[in-house]
């Protein structure tokens, strides 16, 4: 079963974002994205999502933990 151009574009999204597509594949993806707003929106969403995930998982280290780690040091 052959895929549609949009299905193909969907499969290319991660390697596209990771910048690991070949020059040829990249050119094909950009050509499709310039014509297909449906895919372009989804690619833009992916970019936003990646940025958001990085921020969302931020959590400062508990202060007591740092002290506990320091106490593991070998005494001189």
């Amino acid at each position, binding site marked *: 079963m052959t895929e549609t151009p949009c*299905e193909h574009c969907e499969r290319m999204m*991660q390697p596209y974002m990771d910048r690991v597509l070949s020059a040829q594949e990249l050119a094909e993806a950009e050509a499709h994205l310039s014509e297909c707003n449906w895919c372009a929106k*989804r690619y833009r969403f*992916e970019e936003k999502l990646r940025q958001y995930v990085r921020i969302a998982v931020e959590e400062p*280290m508990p202060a007591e933990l740092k002290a506990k*780690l320091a106490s593991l040091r070998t005494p*001189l």
Partner: protein
Amino acid sequence: MPDSDGNALRIATEARDRVHFEEDALALADQVYRVARHLTGSREEAEDLVQETYARAFRSWRSFTPGTNLRAWLLRIATNLNIDRGRRKQRTPDTQPLEEGDYFLYNKLEEADGGAAEEERVVERLSQDDIVSALSAVPHDFRDVIVLVDIGDFSYQDAANILDIPIGTVMSRLHRGRRILKRELAETATGATE
């Protein structure tokens, strides 16, 4: 006498090297915690893991080659300890695939919003808790890679070295893992159950 001078110097040098090592390692604690927090499922587990990691690191400091990537070395200890701890919260293997296509999450969120929406607004439907919770539901083999690469900012090669797997496996687990995560997010954020 030359021998005892030599010994004294060696002992002093080693003590100095160890102090520097410990300081360098402690300076990385926030970064190690940040990754450990999501290798495990909770703050408590992450704290335990980080403490065990540093205890092990300080004991085996001589096996670290100065000038190489200390952060990767520490995370290697952490991931191995995490594996040894038995990964109690494993999902049982499913007969159905864990992931959907890469557009699945957007499609679901857009549907829940009742139609086309700006991408920024669609992302905002996901809370911080949604993301942390969805990530902890991703099976560990996939989660380890996502956490090291997407949160820890390790290169594929560093992640491959830390996990002791081929770089091709890093890439395929990363891509599948992200799709699994997005499927989890789709379920969490839209309140859907399977």
